[in-house]
């Protein structure tokens, strides 16, 4: 069986889908953040795989590196917000956090 780019892309899209479902279905902000990490990782898979099939340079890998860095930053800030939210509401369920509505 010949596995090519298609296999990686398919895998990435499924992983992205799982992440998206997690983000939408769960109400726990922590899990939602993790779902976001899943989605970011799926994108990284696409980048790295595409790079592998066009190995002239490392654009894909470098970009994936940046994605990881930004994801780390996002996790840090996201978790900080989460703690602030927790301090305010005593829970971290996102559908109860709509203070900023209107």
């Amino acid at each position, binding site marked *: 069986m010949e596995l090519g780019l298609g296999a990686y892309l398919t*895998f990435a899209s499924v*992983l992205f889908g*799982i992440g998206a*479902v997690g983000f939408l279905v769960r109400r726990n902000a922590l899990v939602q953040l993790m779902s976001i990490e899943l989605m970011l990782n799926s994108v*990284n898979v696409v980048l790295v795989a595409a790079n592998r099939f066009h190995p002239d340079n490392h654009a894909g890998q470098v970009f994936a590196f940046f994605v*990881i860095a930004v994801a780390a*930053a996002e996790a840090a*800030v996201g978790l900080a917000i989460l703690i602030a939210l927790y*301090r305010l509401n005593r*829970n971290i369920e996102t559908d109860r956090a709509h203070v900023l509505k209107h």
Partner: protein
Amino acid sequence: MTDAKFLLFFFCAAIALAGAIGTIASKLPLRAAMSLLVTIIALAGLYLTLDAQLLAAIQVLVYAGAVVVLFVFVIMLIGPAPETSSAPGSVVWRMLSLVGIAMITATFAFSFVDVASTWVAPPAGFGTVRGVAGEMYTKALVPFEIVAMTLTTAIVGALAIARSKTASELAEMKRRRVAEDASAAAQPAE
């Protein structure tokens, strides 16, 4: 594709998907974090099949070593409470989202399945520290610096958001609240 890589791909992909499902399905946040860890390590394996050794290492270091640990810290900080049962109305929303996402994923996945590609031998040094770094510090230097600044900003921001109030600030808040309450109490009296 060598057989070893072939096997590694399937192995890692299966574990990663399983971990991902575990992440979103487990009731306890801590379990979710552990599943995420599994997924991330499996992804590092996938990177290896793609000749991205450095990235595989970074994946393990940054994600497993930092991000997931951060998650665990936070879980420990706020208590590993499971999700409460949700209001009935929002279930419809979430089911709709679930179905929608499933449809999209299927669409994408089936479109991607047949994408043609050819395995070519990568040039020497592909995916190694030397190869990636050589490119990152030449061609992508400016974005690299920007990312550095972003990280710094994020750290400062995270600190600013997450830190608790100082004693004097708390006192001030309390004083104001008391005053507000007093005026609110005075209002109906008039």
